[in-house]
């Protein structure tokens, strides 16, 4: 237990833990001390001098050490001759802080006058104007006039791209170094730095590509002026014109809390559109940050290519029809379907939709399956994290393990959270066949060969023994469905054998799933690995199996009747008999379960295009035609049914999801100088699903053997893949890498390829696609890394063929 210290700030008694700096102590007491460079998440530097206050300490007799008392018996306070920076001075017992004196007011006024000596008159056009700490604090504390001559203002570059996503305006920068410190301390990518000295100081990046970091967007949130702006929102709207709505990021299983800012837009025909995505504080999930994918890849829902009305195949062509015709046709085919029906769903569907689809299918006697190439959910459901878990609580004595996952590429926020856990003293074990960036912070690195994942577990048992808490993240690097399932089973075993049961918070298995709600699907009882070919009636929702599996195309062609329900006319949809237009996540409400088993609710942000309907509603409409009663219309009608029927959801309500409690740092948009422009959380922090003790643990499957070949292609994940959800974002285009095959130089030589060459690649006898050869000594010999969702279908270790003759040299 840390020692408590009591001090007085502006006449108010405050008790805070020792070590707290004055700014934070004041904040807790509801007293604002203005800051620019200080940020509660970063080490104080005392650069901007805005937080100057008078600090007095009780006087002590030098000889006896006894406090000297005033005549009235109160301790005599001695104030320093000069003001002190409240952001760097820790509190001490009996301290007296004065922030309202004339001396302090004058200092604030002077500091602002200096900051404004060369600040351009840009407020009317500045993206930060309206939510700008410099503007706000100048209004509150600044001088009404400047004594400096306008003509003597420094004129600097106003349009400096720091990479493709973030722009710098050198004139507006006040050199607070928040961006630099964020990149260095929080993101761990020190790609921003100061250059020059004195008035010429400016922010540079020297990385290749510029500002090479997956968290670059956060610097624009914490920039206390308009010096850093995003390419996405530049001049997009004024902040006061924006409306905000709470949502959950749909790009990875972390489940970052977002606030979408919306506005009517002329070029969208007067429709309300999303103008920007902002982080919403949830200290147990994403703190104040989001990754650049979450910030910039929301554009897919606006696409012109969205399906807007039901299509039915007539004379071989998909023809627009009305809903009733499509539903009647589906009902006639699905009636008495029985075992012939297979419903295949994608992991991005919300729980309500998954539930309705399952009820419908099972009501008809069919089977449901989850479309995923990463398995093992059965084990996470049993051993996943439970109530009270928070990665932010992990520290000394705890062990966190990451197996077969490159967290920076797969779930960037977890990367940040685990980096911090390691910095707080938790033991971080990273096990991967090749080096990943997280290893920088790892206490131990375990290296194994692709396909040999299970061989390390004897060793791991010893490593996790004695840990207070144990959290294991497992991924699917170099693994297919069966391989990742075997890995999950081994992890589950480890929990049992080491006695880290999930009845205790902060003990559990986390799947680094490819989609936002894969965990939800496992929780609702979906299983993976269905054989499409075995069913003659297919109902495929939010999944595109054809794009990465040729067998799926065959299965659809052989099936009697296929219904595809999606946002776009995907490759799978193009083969279907009926295509139904679904609504995107931002157009409707629902709930997601994050990889940490946290249930979170999202809300509608924009109106849905055309005749699209949410998936749960479509399922209910089909059910209605087939006399299966399902709740359509509102997810709030479906959710209680889930809670009543699924044990993990027992006792949960929308009210519980909406509960908030005060979080530290106290952030809301009334004082953006303190925490930045990220949103506070009024819409709910979410709750953990119940620990499923009673559920049976499936027997561990045997790990599949690697295919026989000299060099084996293994799948890896990159953050900016070429999937439709990412590629639709115009600002991310320059950051999309070319499809690649990453080889050890010796292997590249064996294949007669060289670094930078473009070759044809066919995996497992599939179609040939052009890829870039990258030589990388870090890749283990005998393996070639091929990224998922980048144009080359790969979902498990496979043989491959390189064709050099077919493509020319790059």
């Amino acid at each position: 237990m840390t020692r408590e210290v009591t001090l007085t700030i502006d006449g108010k008694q405050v008790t805070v833990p020792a070590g707290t700096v004055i700014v934070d102590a004041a904040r807790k007491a509801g007293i604002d001390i203005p800051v620019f460079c200080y940020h509660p998440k970063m080490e104080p530097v005392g650069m901007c001098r805005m937080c100057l206050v008078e600090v007095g300490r009780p006087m002590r007799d030098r000889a006896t050490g006894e406090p000297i008392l005033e005549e009235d018996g109160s301790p005599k306070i001695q104030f320093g001759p000069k003001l002190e920076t409240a952001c760097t001075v820790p509190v001490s017992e009996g301290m007296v802080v004065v922030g309202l004196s004339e001396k302090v007011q004058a200092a604030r006024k002077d500091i602002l006058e200096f900051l404004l000596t060369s600040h351009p008159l840009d407020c009317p056009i500045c993206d930060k104007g309206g939510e700008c700490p410099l503007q706000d604090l100048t209004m509150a504390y600044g001088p009404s006039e400047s004594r400096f001559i306008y003509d003597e203002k420094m004129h600097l570059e106003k349009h400096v791209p720091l990479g493709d996503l973030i722009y710098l305006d050198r004139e507006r920068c006040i050199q607070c170094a928040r961006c630099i410190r964020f990149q260095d301390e929080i993101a761990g990518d020190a790609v921003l730095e100061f250059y020059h000295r004195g008035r010429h100081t400016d922010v540079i990046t020297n990385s290749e590509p510029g500002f090479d970091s997956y968290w670059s967007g956060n610097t624009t949130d914490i920039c206390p002026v308009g010096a850093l702006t995003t390419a996405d929102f530049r001049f997009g709207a004024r902040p006061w014109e924006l409306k905000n709505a709470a949502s959950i990021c749909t790009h990875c299983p972390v489940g970052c809390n977002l606030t979408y800012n919306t506005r009517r837009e002329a070029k969208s025909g007067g429709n309300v559109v999303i103008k920007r995505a902002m982080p919403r504080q949830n200290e147990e999930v994403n703190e104040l940050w989001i990754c650049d994918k979450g910030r910039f890849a929301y554009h897919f829902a606006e696409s012109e290519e969205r399906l807007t009305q039901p299509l039915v195949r007539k004379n071989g062509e998909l023809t627009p029809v009305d809903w009733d015709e499509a539903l009647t046709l589906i009902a006639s085919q699905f009636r008495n379907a029985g075992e012939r029906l297979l419903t295949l769903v994608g992991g991005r569907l919300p729980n309500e939709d998954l539930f309705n689809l399952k009820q419908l299918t099972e009501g008809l006697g069919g089977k449901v399956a989850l479309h995923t190439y990463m398995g093992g959910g059965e084990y996470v459901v049993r051993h996943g994290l439970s109530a009270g878990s928070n990665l932010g609580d992990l520290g000394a004595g705890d062990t966190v393990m990451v197996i077969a996952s490159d967290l920076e590429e797969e779930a960037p926020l977890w990367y940040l959270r685990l980096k911090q856990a390691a910095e707080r003293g938790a033991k971080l074990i990273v096990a991967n066949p090749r080096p990943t960036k997280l290893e920088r912070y790892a206490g131990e690195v375990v290296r194994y060969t692709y396909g040999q994942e299970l061989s390390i577990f004897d060793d791991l048992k010893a490593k996790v023994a004695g840990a207070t808490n144990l959290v294991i993240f497992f991924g699917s690097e170099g693994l297919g469905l069966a391989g990742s399932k075997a890995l999950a089973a081994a992890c589950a075993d480890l929990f049992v054998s080491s006695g880290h049961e999930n009845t205790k918070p902060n003990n559990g298995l986390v799947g680094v799933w490819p989609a936002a709600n894969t965990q939800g699907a496992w929780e609702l009882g979906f299983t993976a690995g269905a054989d499409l070919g075995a069913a003659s009636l297919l109902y495929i929702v939010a999944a595109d199996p054809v794009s990465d599996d040729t067998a799926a195309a065959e299965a659809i062609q052989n099936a009697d009747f296929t219904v595809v329900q999606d946002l776009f006319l995907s490759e799978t949809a193009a083969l279907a008999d009926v295509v139904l237009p679904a609504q995107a996540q931002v157009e409707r409400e629902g709930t997601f379960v994050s990889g940490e088993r946290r249930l979170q609710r999202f809300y509608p942000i924009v109106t849905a295009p055309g005749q699209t309907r949410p998936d749960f509603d479509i399922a209910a409409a089909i059910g209605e035609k087939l006399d299966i009663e399902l709740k359509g219309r509102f997810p709030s009608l479906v959710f209680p049914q889930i809670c009543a029927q699924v044990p993990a959801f027992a006792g949960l309500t929308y009210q519980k999801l909406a509960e908030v409690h005060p979080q530290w740092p106290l952030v809301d948009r009334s004082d953006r100088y303190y925490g930045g422009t990220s949103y506070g959380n009024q819409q709910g922090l979410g709750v953990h699903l119940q620990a499923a003790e009673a559920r049976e643990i499936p027997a561990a499957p045997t790990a599949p053997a690697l295919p026989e070949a000299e060099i084996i292609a293994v799948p890896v994940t990159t953050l900016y893949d070429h999937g439709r959800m990412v590629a639709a974002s115009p600002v991310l285009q320059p950051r999309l890498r070319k499809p690649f095959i990453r080889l050890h130089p010796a292997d590249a030589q064996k294949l007669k390829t060289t670094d930078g060459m473009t070759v044809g690649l066919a995996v497992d006898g599939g179609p040939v696609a052009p890829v870039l050869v990258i030589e990388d000594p870090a890749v283990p010999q005998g393996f070639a890394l091929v990224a998922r969702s980048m144009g080359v279908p790969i979902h498990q270790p496979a043989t491959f063929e390189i064709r050099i003759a077919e493509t020319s040299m790059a």
Partner: protein
Amino acid sequence: MALPERAQVQEILRGMWITFRSMFEKPVTIQYPEVKRRIHTRFRGRHVLNRYENGLEKCIGCSLCAAACPADAIFVESAENTDEERYSPGERYASTYEINMLRCIFCGYCEDACPTQAITLEDNYELSFTSRRDAIYTKERLLVPVPEGGKPTPQKVEPGVFTRAVPEMADPTD
């Protein structure tokens, strides 16, 4: 019927006199629209969007007029200028600018809020439209003609000349 009282006759005569006298006065009615009344200096008629002498638009798309508007009659959307396609000095220009004249109460707050004196309320009070849609004045309708010697927007300009969105008013190159 009794004869009218003396006082009553007097009143009638006085009234008749006023009528008679006004026959020789200059009439106050004017033959609108052939003849138009004088506009006062501070009259607030329809808005215009002004240009600099070189033809660049003064409006920088800052939306302060829209923020000031008590009737929510103004809608502004902005975009980024380049030296190849420059609409206004500085980085930002109004890509969409609309005023709904049915909502406008001609208070002139927009004029007050404008940091570049781009929007001014001028003399024109002859607003007529036959549909609600026509009542929404677009940027094209609000912009004044290009002054003599100026060029229409967008202009292709020398790089690095028009860097200031809020110039020292007179000279946009400052």
